[in-house]
């Protein structure tokens, strides 16, 4: 890419950036070198704790409480932004370097109408006359695909949908015509179709207004959709940086490769693999290459020598000593085949004409499907589709429903208390958020052994042995036995939750979005674990998710839900490859994916 002089002027170059914790001198991020070019979106990807948000906000010369920008420069229009006094920095923030937060709902004032808020922004910066401001506000809304009529301008933020709020935030970020834009996970929490629209809007605006954008996210699939270049962060460093296609076809760093191995594809079923261990936080990061303790290609020198940036291709660098020695990588590594639609099915759970109510409101309108032995059935849909509601009815957590739930020929009672102990034991529910589903006052052993005691499966030392066995089955090991859950990471907690479910020796696991609160590398290992359990213990699963790509890798059958109705169902290969319903097609076309 050749740069004209004007372009160089407009971009933004970060060099040698280091943000450290106040007082302790530990780095949160270090050695960040990144060039943002006009009209280009750079995706900054990393797992939680990698420092991606810290690096992103440092572009605005901002560090969260307890951290400070220790050294480095952010060159913008010929000046170092980080060296500016705060009065001048304030002029630049929002005007020239703008920021779009993750939760736009928190950024808009709920008591002020949309139109007024946008105009207020222009007033604050003293742009134009009253009429011009209003005209600009309308133009800004049109740009992001929102209506610009008076009715819309007069709405309050709570009268907009999540996607609309995010687009208002985008319109406000773009209005002062910034040169640099930092987007911090702006589509996290949005449904896929809304996310698709927002991503498209961001891409178009950045390109048409020649904005240099930094898109911070944990989602590789989103990056593959929107970014021109991709920077991968790990433990506070950018470990690989390159053009998107090169990054996804020929990733050079072992971490990038491991991440790509962990994410599911929409077009193929894959055997997902996770990355062992966890992302180390500041102060726990190893010396030498930060990834050395989890890397499958590690050598002794990786532990002592901090790897420099190595050129691996045009515009493509990686921080790894062993670049070129570790062979090539193929995106199709780990592909497997979909479940054959011709396999015979031994039904254990059937759902007939299920109608669910919250109070007097019917939210699920007559859904029927079934689950066979050792089969994973996915319930897919956007928020409000009723997928979690259905799973809660199956798990006995929601009582207001009509219809038939039959488990191995026996009808199931409405709530868990009206079911026989045998049914409660054989159907186990795993929750979405492992931070809420484990009692913080109990030890892991107490948590996992409780179902055994309750159902009379094991007692005393026998129960303890079983707990150790189960913890090993979920790859945790006996060292965590006497810990409380606050000592564990999210992925480890979810494993404990799975172990607790397994302790009851169930035949059906109801999994409610159990990987959505976790990093992709952890998701990969959880999915691998579930697949193993399904094969070895013949456990069936009802898997609730919004992620179609994940469905492809984990499920045999899929039920697509929209607004409480089943719109399409069948074997995964049929539904995803030859969708028949309009809604399924729309979901598929909006789902971001790497392949």
């Amino acid at each position, binding site marked *: 890419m050749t740069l004209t002089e004007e372009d160089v002027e407009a971009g933004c170059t970060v060099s040698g950036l280091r943000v450290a914790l106040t007082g302790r001198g530990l780095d949160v991020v270090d050695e960040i070198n990144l060039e943002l070019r006009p009209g280009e979106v750079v995706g900054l990807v990393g797992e939680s704790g990698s420092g991606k948000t810290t690096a992103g906000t440092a572009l605005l010369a901002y560090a969260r409480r307890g951290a400070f920008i220790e050294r480095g420069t952010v060159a913008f229009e010929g000046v170092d932004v980080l060296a500016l006094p705060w009065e001048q920095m304030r002029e630049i923030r929002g005007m020239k370097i703008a920021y779009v937060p993750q939760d736009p709902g928190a950024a808009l004032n709920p008591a002020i109408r949309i139109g007024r808020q946008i105009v207020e922004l222009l007033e604050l910066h003293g742009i134009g006359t009253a009429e011009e401001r209003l005209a600009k506000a309308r133009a800004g809304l049109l740009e992001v695909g929102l209506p610009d009529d008076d009715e819309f301008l007069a709405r309050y933020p709570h009268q907009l949908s999540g996607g609309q709020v995010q687009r208002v935030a985008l319109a406000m970020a773009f209005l002062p015509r910034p040169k640099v834009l930092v987007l911090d996970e702006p589509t996290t929490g949005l449904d896929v179709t809304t996310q698709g629209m927002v991503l498209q809007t961001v891409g178009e605006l950045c390109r048409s207004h020649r904005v240099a954008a930094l898109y911070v996210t944990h989602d590789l699939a989103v990056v593959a959709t929107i970014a021109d270049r991709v920077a991968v962060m790990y433990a506070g460093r950018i470990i690989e940086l390159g053009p998107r296609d090169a990054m996804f076809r020929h990733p050079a760093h072992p971490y990038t490769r491991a991440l790509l191995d962990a994410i599911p594809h929409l077009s193929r079923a894959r055997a997902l693999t996770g990355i062992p261990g966890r992302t180390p936080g500041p102060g726990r990061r190893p010396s030498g290459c930060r990834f050395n303790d989890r890397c499958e290609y590690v050598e002794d020198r990786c532990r002592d020598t901090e790897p420099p940036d190595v050129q691996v291709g045009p515009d493509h660098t990686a921080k790894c000593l062993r670049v070129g020695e570790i062979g090539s990588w193929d995106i199709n590594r780990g592909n497997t085949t979909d479940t054959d639609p011709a396999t015979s099915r031994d039904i254990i759970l059937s759902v007939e004409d299920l109608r669910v109510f919250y109070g007097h409101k019917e939210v699920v309108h007559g859904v029927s499907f079934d689950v066979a032995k050792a089969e994973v059935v996915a319930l897919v849909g956007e928020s409000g589709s009723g997928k979690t509601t259905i799973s809660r009815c199956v798990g006995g957590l929601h009582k207001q429903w009509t219809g038939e739930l039959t488990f191995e020929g026996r009808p199931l009672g409405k709530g*868990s*208390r009206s*079911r026989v102990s045998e049914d*409660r034991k054989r159907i186990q529910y795993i*929750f979405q958020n492992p931070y809420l589903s*484990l009692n913080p*006052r*109990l030890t892991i052993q107490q948590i996992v052994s409780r179902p055994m005691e*309750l159902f009379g499966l094991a007692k005393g030392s026998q129960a303890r042995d079983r707990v150790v066995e189960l913890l090993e089955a979920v790859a945790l090991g006996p060292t965590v036995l006497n810990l409380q859950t606050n000592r564990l990471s999210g992925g480890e907690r979810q494993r404990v939750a799975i172990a*607790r479910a397994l302790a009851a020796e169930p035949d059906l696991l109801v999994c409610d979005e159990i990987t959505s609160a976790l990093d992709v590398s952890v998701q990969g290992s959880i999915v691998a674990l579930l697949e193993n359990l399904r094969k070895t213990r013949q456990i069936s699963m009802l898997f609730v998710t919004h992620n179609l790509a994940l469905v492809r890798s984990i499920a045999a059958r899929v039920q697509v839900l929209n607004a409480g109705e089943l719109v399409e169902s069948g074997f995964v290969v049929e539904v995803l490859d030859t969708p028949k319903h309009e809604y399924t097609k729309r979901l598929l076309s909006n789902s971001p994916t790497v392949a």
Partner: protein
Amino acid sequence: MNVLTPANLRRIGNQRRLVTGLVITVVIALMAIVGPWLAPYGENDIVGKPFTHQGSWLGTDYLGQDVWSRVLDGGGSILLISVLATLLGMVVGIMIGVVAAYIGGWLDEGIMRLNDVALAFPQILLALLVLTAVDQPSWWMIVLLVGISHAPRVARVSRGVALGIVSRDYVTSAEALGESRLRVILAEVLPNMNAPLLAEAGLRLTYSIGMVAGIGFLGFATNPGAADWGQMINENRLALLVQPWGVLAPVIVIGIFTVGTNLMADGIAQLAGRGD
């Protein structure tokens, strides 16, 4: 589950508010417990003329008894009654609040509206009503009355705390497993309410002392002749300008103790607010 691990102790040590409160509370409590042995005179010994500076350093009271000795003697009963009353109020209140929050629905509505009615009734009035009706109030009556008058207030707080916990997934999870309701409350809900309830207990103890002292002041102490901080204030109030120590000494001790327990309660609340 060990609360007193070295790490926890260090965290408590870093809480200056908590430590100060703890020290004050312990010192006053010790004074009330071992006071009777340290007192230079007996509680009913006449050591001089009334309201003079005879006797030990705080002078004499309305009958010529030694004020300092009576201060040392008069704490035990008031502290014991206050602590017991607080315990009673906490237990009853927590039971009401947690059950209401856990069961929910119309039962919750009913219990809490009745609770509101009880709250509208002035705390000390009920106590006085009953105490005036009986001839000679015994100590357990005061415990009962003060404790019961705390219960609605504790119930409100504990229901609020429990509401945030009963909707958590681990409670739902225990329900789905079919745990008995009692066990869900005892094992899943209550242990997670520790910190806010401890803070509430500290506050209630403060109020208890005030109330028990107040009842003593109004002349409803169990033993009219015995030394009692609350009663002392009443007995000696006539000579406030001549011999103020008869009133001031018990007031100061009660005041310091109240500050101590309050600081402790605040400290616990702060510690809890920062995350367990």
